[in-house]
């Protein structure tokens, strides 16, 4: 059973399909050419004539069948149509009565009785009565149909010897029972008579005529040489069968030419369509079936591998069309142009990443992704440092600006001993730092800080002596005290 799915998303890939279609078209052309060759060798005129006659016979037969089918449909028995056809075909074969007669007879009875079962019984009775009385099946059927409608006059004219009491009752069950009692087995018995044999021949001829045409049949009758009816009948049917086999054989040969239509089973090539379809998967009864199933499975696996390989190859192969498409790919052109115009490395990296995605190049995409990541981190660090620098500058400017504008004083007006601005614009530090500090301490803003200096502290005299000693030592070593690039005085 087919896969049964409901899907929200689907995708399409028509590459493989287009190629397959192309191949099929080419193959179709080849087979048409082959068919023309066959027609030429078999004789075009003969085939046309044969075809015309056969079609005419078939059309007449089909017309009758269609009419009955419609009748069945109208009476609510459409589903029984194939069954009735089968029944009529069997009657024709069994009793040597043409379906051309049986169909209208059955149709008449069906119209009158409205029941398939009753129609079948009545037709069987009609065949027996017809065989016994010499009346045609259609005549008997028409009489029986009238009987179902309540008119028994036609039944009296059949010469069947029905009793007046039965006819007067108008009860068709009784009438049919009496007819059956009188004529049962007549139709079968008639087949042993000459007339019966003739009718059988007629049926065989008509059947063949529907297949191969009347002209061919007449020719066979003249060429036969054997005048016995049995031989002629079998020859006619044999020829029809042979022609049918020939036609079927041509079709079969054509089918074997189709790729993938044949399979090798036990060393013998067979058409797939002629192999049994239902007993491979679900438990076979014999060992041969198991072997067959194994072969099928192997073949399916092989086909699946071949298809997968084909698909992979198609994916890998970059065709000329694809390359051309790349050249006209607007997105690619835009990206390439942007890449050429880009000056900084980061933009270039991003553009290359975009191109890698477009090319579906996994390795390259990963590489660019890593580089992008590194560049982004570096940029983030540089940005952070620049921002820090800017913040320091900004604060410095703010502080100086505020002091110059006197805002500092406003902002800290509640705080004593803060720097102020003099009339010239210069910053004026608090006059008494100690009082500033003490003011802060007294307000609890600052805690007093004590600084302890470890080691010795030089006096002013000690410092002067140390400098003099050092200069003397330098002069003694012959080195100058003038810094490099400075102007020295004369000696």
């Amino acid at each position, binding site marked *: *059973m087919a*896969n*049964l*799915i*409901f*899907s*929200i*998303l*689907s*995708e*399409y*890939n*028509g*590459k*493989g*399909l287009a190629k397959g279609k192309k191949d099929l078209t080419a193959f179709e052309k080849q087979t048409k050419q082959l068919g023309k060759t066959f027609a030429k060798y078999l004789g075009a005129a003969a085939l046309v004539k044969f075809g015309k006659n056969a079609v005419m016979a078939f059309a007449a037969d089909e017309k009758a069948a269609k009419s009955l089918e419609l009748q069945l449909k109208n009476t609510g028995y*459409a*589903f*029984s149509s*194939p*069954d009735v056809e*089968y029944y009529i075909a069997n009657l024709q074969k069994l009793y040597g009565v043409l379906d051309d007669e049986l169909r209208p007879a059955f149709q008449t009875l069906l119209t009158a009785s409205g029941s398939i079962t009753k129609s079948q019984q009545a037709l069987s009775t009609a065949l027996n009565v017809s065989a016994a009385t010499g009346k045609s099946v259609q005549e008997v059927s028409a009489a029986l149909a009238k009987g179902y409608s309540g008119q028994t006059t036609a039944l009296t004219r059949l010469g069947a010897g029905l009793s007046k009491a039965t006819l007067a009752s108008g009860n068709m069950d009784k009438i049919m029972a009496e007819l059956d009692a009188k004529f049962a087995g007549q139709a079968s018995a008639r087949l042993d008579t000459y007339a019966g044999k003739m009718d059988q021949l007629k049926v065989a001829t008509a059947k063949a005529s529907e297949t191969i045409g009347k002209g061919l049949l007449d020719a066979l009758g003249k060429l036969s040489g054997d005048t016995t009816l049995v031989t002629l009948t079998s020859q006619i049917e044999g020829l029809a069968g042979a022609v049918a086999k020939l036609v079927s054989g041509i079709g079969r040969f054509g089918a074997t030419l189709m790729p993938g239509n044949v399979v090798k089973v036990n060393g013998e090539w067979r058409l797939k369509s002629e192999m*049994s*379809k*239902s*007993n491979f*998967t*679900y*438990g*076979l*009864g*014999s060992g041969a079936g198991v072997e067959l199933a194994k072969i099928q499975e192997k073949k399916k696996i092989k086909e699946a591998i071949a298809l997968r390989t084909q698909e992979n190859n198609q994916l890998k192969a970059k065709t000329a069309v694809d390359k051309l498409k790349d050249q006209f790919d607007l997105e690619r052109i*835009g*990206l390439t142009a*942007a890449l050429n115009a880009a000056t900084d490395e*980061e*933009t270039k990296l*991003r*553009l290359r*990443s*975009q191109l890698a*995605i477009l090319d*579906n190049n*996994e390795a390259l*995409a*990963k590489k660019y*992704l890593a580089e992008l990541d590194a560049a982004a981190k570096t940029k983030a660090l540089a940005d952070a440092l620049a921002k820090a620098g800017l913040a320091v500058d900004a604060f410095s400017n703010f502080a100086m600006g505020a002091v110059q504008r006197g805002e500092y004083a406003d902002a800290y007006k509640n705080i004593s001993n803060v720097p102020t601005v003099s009339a010239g614009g210069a910053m004026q530090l608090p006059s008494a730092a100690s009082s500033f500090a003490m003011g802060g301490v007294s307000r609890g803003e600052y805690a007093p800080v004590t600084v302890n200096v470890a080691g010795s502290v030089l006096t002013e005299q000690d410092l002067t002596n140390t400098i003099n000693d050092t200069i003397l030592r330098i002069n003694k070593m012959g080195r100058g005290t003038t810094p490099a690039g400075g102007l020295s005085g004369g000696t």
Partner: protein
Amino acid sequence: MPVNVTGIKEMKKALGEVDKDLLKDVQAQIRVAMLPIRDKARGYAPQDSEVLSGWTKAAGITGPMKYRTFPKYNRSQVVEGIKYSAGRNKRNKGGWAATNYISNNSAPGKIYELAGRKSGPSGAPWIGLDADINNKEISHSLNPRAGAQFIAAMPPLVNARPQGMSGNNRGYKQKGRLIFRAASEEQGKAMAHILKALDDTAAKFVKRTEIRKAVNG
């Protein structure tokens, strides 16, 4: 009503390379949208007592057989057979493949889903007991009306294809009683959810990679 999207595979691959979380997000969102359809479809599977009694009985034939008997109905089997798959199925002859789909896999489930979809309410034609056993287009029952009776005992088929939708698939292939019925009722919501998920993902993708910004300068 599938949305036909080209390059799903490529999109997934690109998403996977750039940001694996995004791919997982998309799949999770689609799953959230599809699971109600699956669950509803499972709910539409009738109990064993609700189908024709003969369908729940095993075939009376034992020993090796040359053909498969008609599968008997078993609700739990049907429910287990209705699944959601996030992958992609095999590409069909027309070149199409479905992704993120709900499937009805069990034999009785498929029969319940589809009975009468192709043959109509009268079932497959019955042409007698001598019919070719390999012909699956006809009824092989002893009862000529078996097909019609079987179909009449089931609820009607529901078409999951929205009314008035144009396209080639105007036939009966979207009709059913389980997954297609559930889909006809839930697919509007599911579709909206999935489209939103895809849209959000696209926005996230662009935001995270900033490729668009780089291209536009």
